């Protein structure tokens, strides 16, 4: 259960976290300024388990990892978008921030809706209007990385081969 925060199309890494805040890679510090220009109230009132609902090509721009780190640091549960920019997609998975592609959900969810996401099945339930949407289930290896809290943590206790076993 979490509140939906909606964002527009082509949300780039600078809009997620402006370059001037990228001097740190501390998730908590970064989270203080996440979306500060496009939605300043987000960082102030986001609650653990809230859900980011983005537009097409979410996370485009630079290959810097600060953007997904900032979102993860804000304790959002996951991001739902119709599509993600390529390097953002990888970076999010590797730092353990689950991302779901589901255009139907994005089209139907409005800001503030109460949204439930089952990461292992990909089922999204919008309590606000009772609608259900199905994103593709996240591959097992993505869930493993997310459960470990990112690929770096995963590797502390596992061999990389374990990802696909």
């Amino acid at each position, binding site marked *: 259960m979490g509140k939906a925060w909606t964002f527009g199309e*082509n949300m780039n890494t600078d809009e997620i976290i402006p370059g001037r805040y990228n001097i740190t890679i501390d998730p908590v510090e970064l989270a203080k300024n996440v979306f500060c220009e496009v939605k300043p109230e987000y960082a102030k009132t986001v609650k653990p388990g809230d859900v980011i609902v983005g537009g097409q*090509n979410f996370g*485009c721009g630079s*290959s810097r990892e600060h953007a997904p780190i900032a979102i993860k640091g804000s304790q959002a549960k996951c991001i739902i978008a119709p599509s993600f*920019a390529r*390097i953002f997609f*990888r970076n999010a998975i590797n730092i353990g921030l689950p991302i779901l592609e589901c255009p139907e959900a994005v089209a139907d969810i409005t800001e503030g809706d109460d949204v439930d996401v089952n990461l292992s099945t990909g089922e999204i339930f919008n309590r606000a209007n009772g609608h259900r949407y199905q994103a593709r289930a996240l591959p097992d290896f993505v869930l493993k990385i997310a459960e470990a809290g990112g690929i*770096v943590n995963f*590797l502390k206790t596992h061999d990389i081969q374990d990802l*696909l076993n």
Partner: protein
Amino acid sequence: MGTLVEEIFSRKAGRQVQAGEIVLLDVDYIMSHDNTTPLAIKAFREIGKPILDKSRIVIHLDHAYPAPNVLAAENHKKIIEFVKEQELPNLLHQGVCHQVMIEEGFITPGAIVIGADSHSNTYGAMGAFGAGLGSTEIGVAWVTGKCWFKVPETIRVELSGQTQAGVYAKDVMIHIAGLLGMDGGTYRSVEFGGEYIANLPMHERIVFPNMSTEIGAKCGLIAADEVTINYLENETPARRRVLSESKDPFEALHPINPRYERILEIDVSALTPQVACHPDVDNVKPLTEVEGLDVHEVYIGTCTNARYEDLEIVANMLKDKKVNPLVRVIVTPASDRIYKKALKNGLIEILMDAGCTVTGSGCGACIGRHGGILAPGERALTTMNRNFIGRMGSPLSEIYLASPATAAATALTGKITDPRGILV
């Protein structure tokens, strides 16, 4: 059986793989540079395990080298200390990372090379899979030698015909960026082929995979052929691939009965010089539509278009002429090797006599850190690959992308100028 990327991945996986699958593959080389290595070092330290194979790590100092400020100097220091501590054999500062990777022979057909730089796609010109990743993954690959990939779908760009005089690979690629758009290749492999590519020398081919990044592609590929093998044999030091010792290090893979998501057919014969206009790479216009627009700087450099042949085109056009004295014309050879050859053959003298400022090799003005930063309200015409707002300095400046020939013509007049009227 499959597209070129499926073939490359299948060879590495030792089984047939298909688009959509997730695979975990050995990587041949792991590239990073002065901007991205510090974060990779951090990930590496956190993992707390040793480097798997030091010979596979290649680190470049190129983005801000020699250091233009204290921050950059600290980065370099940190990297050099790490290289010393870990006794890494490949620390290079001979030019733009991607050019140096290719000319030093790190890139061979069928190889898988990852880089903490978005233009690592460039390696596709040699029939290798090259892709840009975040720094954390580079640290992970140092330790594991592996990387996970989702096998991408492929867009085939089939190019036929021959370009007219004054029209180059850059014009063709800018045209393609305009057609496919900034996210037209997202998650995809973009395979360039056809009669036009087959006849193209290596220095022109490199432009296509290099700028596949601009359309969001995971990789841009050209199947290796005779041109590739000749380039490797004649231009690069013999360097066996680290992995696959038992296999042919120059294995030229081709698509076999490929299933493409989409095929884009383009006849380049009628194409005229193209310009990607401020502020987006897909804001593409025929040069004639923007001709006469004033520029304040002409920048000839970067991993896209600062190879020897590019400098030769420019020198031929500027020989015994003077560039507009009110315009800063900056030439940054992509690598020291290119610089030395240009020096030896008299190109540098021609460029300097014409009024160009020639800088040391590297990324130069490309990322707005040094070597030609733009002031608010200024406009540059450059041979770069991207024109993001503020990339070369002030967010109030404008960047126009074009071929080296268009850059040379524009340098002479100080206005965007068609090279076809000036070419000798």
